[in-house]
């Protein structure tokens, strides 16, 4: 295993690699096709390089743990806007999630519907390409159209275009108060209609999820609002009125209970330790219930207003036929190595797009040594 602790060492390790490399941050997200190759750990590149709360900016080395970054931000009353999921419970993995891993997999949580994905908060990257060259793109300002946006390209590229070494993010203040509107007993269709009504309101919803089987076994639909206390109270009332036709509405405003509830959604805790493969599907919200039904799943969880479906299904089954004729994509998040080797883990792309993706990988990694084949 190679374990560089500086960017220069990282570049050397890649430049001098004799064969394929398996790139790892904290090792908590074993997603993708199994990769054979020498292990290259980025976990040694740690540290917060710069944090300016007044500019809502933080710059960190890629191996810095999510926990360290979140603690530093919390000390200033700020947070990562996109609420990155912790995959450990769902995947049964151990170790420390790193910021590099979050970016490599473009990991976002329930707040994605309001503030965007990880890639939307990512302002700059430094990375080492497959030649061993250190490259930078973007910077530490939110508005930047200087040259091509390789920052977005790197987010979600799972280390197949380059090995991330440094990342800069826009951060946001932690709001004073939070409230969650809860409706019990809705069907998936009714739930998505309720979520759409809330998301189409002016009340700035920051979470919109539906669990057909909630913590206590009954279907529960959850809508989150955040902000100053008076404003949250006002909007909670306004949403209660707006959604009155959907059933009885409860409002939960206890910070610990609401945080636990959204962590349960974010980390898909319901599927932890349960048998089966787990798929993550992105469709437009109104397609959610139809796709959900067609999946014939053992478990479902809807987030992002119904547009992100977490599905637990029998092992080794390709669920993509359920998406036939529906715009969107499905990713196999949890499955055995055999299944991940047999099924496309990422959504197969139409030929012209696949050619572009392959062309980009060949340009950034001409030797084909960076997590080769991980994305299919």
């Amino acid at each position, binding site marked *: 295993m190679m374990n560089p602790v500086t960017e220069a060492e990282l570049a050397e390790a890649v430049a001098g690699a004799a064969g394929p490399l398996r790139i790892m941050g904290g090792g908590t997200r074993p997603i993708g096709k199994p990769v054979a190759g020498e292990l290259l750990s980025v976990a040694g590149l740690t540290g917060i390089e710069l944090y300016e709360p007044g500019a809502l900016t933080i710059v960190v080395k890629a191996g810095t743990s999510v926990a360290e970054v979140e603690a530093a931000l919390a000390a200033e009353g700020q947070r990562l806007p996109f609420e990155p999921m912790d995959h450990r419970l769902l995947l049964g993995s151990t170790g420390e999630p790193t910021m590099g891993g979050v970016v490599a997999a473009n990991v976002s949580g329930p707040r994605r519907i309001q503030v965007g994905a990880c890639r939307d908060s990512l302002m700059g990257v430094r990375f080492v390409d497959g030649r061993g060259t250190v490259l930078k793109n973007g*910077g530490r300002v939110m508005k930047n159209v200087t040259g091509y946006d390789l920052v977005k390209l790197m987010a979600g590229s799972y280390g197949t275009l380059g090995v991330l070494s440094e990342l800069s993010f826009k951060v946001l203040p932690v709001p004073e108060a939070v409230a969650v509107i809860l409706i019990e007993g809705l069907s998936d269709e009714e739930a998505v209609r309720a979520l759409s009504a809330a998301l189409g309101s002016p009340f700035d919803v920051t979470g919109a999820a539906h669990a057909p089987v909630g913590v206590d076994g009954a279907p529960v639909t959850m809508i989150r609002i955040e902000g100053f206390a008076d404003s949250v109270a006002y909007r909670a009332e306004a949403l209660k009125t707006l959604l009155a036709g959907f059933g009885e509405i409860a409002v939960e405003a206890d910070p610990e209970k609401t945080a636990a509830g959204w962590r349960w959604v974010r980390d898909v805790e319901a599927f932890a330790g349960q048998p089966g493969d787990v798929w993550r599907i992105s469709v437009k919200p109104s397609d959610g219930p139809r796709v959900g039904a067609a999946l014939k799943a053992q478990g479902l969880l809807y987030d992002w207003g119904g547009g992100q479906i977490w599905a637990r299904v029998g092992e080794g089954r390709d669920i993509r036929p359920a998406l036939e004729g529906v715009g969107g994509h499905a990713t196999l998040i949890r499955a055995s190595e055999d299944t991940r080797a047999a099924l496309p883990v990422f959504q197969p792309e139409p030929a012209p797009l696949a050619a572009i993706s392959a062309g980009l990988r060949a340009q950034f990694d001409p030797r084909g040594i960076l997590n080769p084949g991980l994305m299919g």
Partner: protein
Amino acid sequence: MEMPTPNPDILARKARIVERLREVLPRDAVIDDVHETRAYECDALTAYRCPPLCAVLPASTQEVSDVLRICNEEGVPVVPRGSGTSLAGGALPTADSVILGVARLTEVLETDYENRFIRVQTGRTNLSVTGAVEEEDFFYAPDPSSQLACAIAGNIGMNSGGAHCLKYGVTTNNLLGVTIVLMDGTVVEIGGAHLDAGGLDLLGVICGSEGQLGVVTEATLRILRKPEGARPVLMGFDNNEVAGECVSDIIKAGVLPVAIEFMDRPVIRATEAFAHAGYPDCEALLIVEVEGSEAEIDEQLGLITQIARKHNPVELRESTNAEESAKIWLGRKSAFGAMGQINDYMCLDGTIPVSSLPYVLKRIGEMSEEYGLGVGNVFHAGDGNMHPLILFDANKPGDLELCERFGADILKLCVEVGGCLTGEHGVGVEKRDLMHAQFTAEDMEAQLRVKDVFDPKWLLNPAKVFPLDVTESRRVA
């Protein structure tokens, strides 16, 4: 401004190229008359002009595909053009290029309030996208100041921002999908009404690529429900630095205004003389706008004014109604026009970390004296996107060049403090030769390789974004 020498071989084949284009387009959609092509000789960067070989105005994705396939076969450069409002020369043609205008692609293809998106052809103007969803109280968030005229195609090309992106983000954060035509005529769909990419984020790299990777003909855009209301507060300070600190304190306090706009004394005076908005005569002025219900606005403005008071403002004027809001915004919205009344000006677009605001303003003031050219500052302070306006006399020999050198120095300063050359206008030809200040040769090479994949012959808007010497071997290959 150096542009590549037109390829004489292409110029000689003009008649044949025009004829082939006429085979796939209606007669009036191919403009080759030398008087008529003058309409396409420049965009809003009017200092540089060159009529194209011809201009085409396709009315469908299929027609765009046909045009690109022919130009690809003929080896003719294509310069895509939205509404021609680029301040960076993004749509500046060369004599051997075909201008591909999207002005006839203006349809709304689908509006979906339940899923909160709209799908439009990209020749549609920014403001008319909001216009199409306004009756349901929805809007499209990015709002560049040219929004009345600028096309979505150009917004995507330049990843345009606007005054309200502090809260809502820029184009890339509001773009869900595109139909894009590659240079060889291939039509590709990327993204859609769902969120995020299934594979590599190609949408992310297409947005802001200045028409160099493909021609976007259709776009799926996120629409949002309008807030219940919005109101600004105006505050004046007798010191730029203090105004900068106030911005930082507001952001730190946990308020997230939708806009924080900054104007300095030269701009305040010019707009006051022009628009009579009743601004105080002071060193720095901030306009901070918040959104929500009446009570929510009151609460946020209360907090903001409380912070402002700690910085001893010379004026603090909270809007209480729509009329007062309009008056507060009047000066800001007419700032560019007002500056144009008193002088020719060049508008820069560098972004800096908000924490460097006071230092950069001080340095710009010093440089203004060194160069002997006046400068006014009006910009989006919340996200550090500066818009210094350098005043010069276009009729005075050498003044434009002096102004460009001053501008280059300001942009280099932006990069030095950790910022960038352009925050929302794009590189175009204007900042092309400054790219060395921000990127190493390798950093640029990585970007060129992306273009190699999308446009292997380097025919799409080839003389933009990167310094000509950097792209030469690819352009002539």
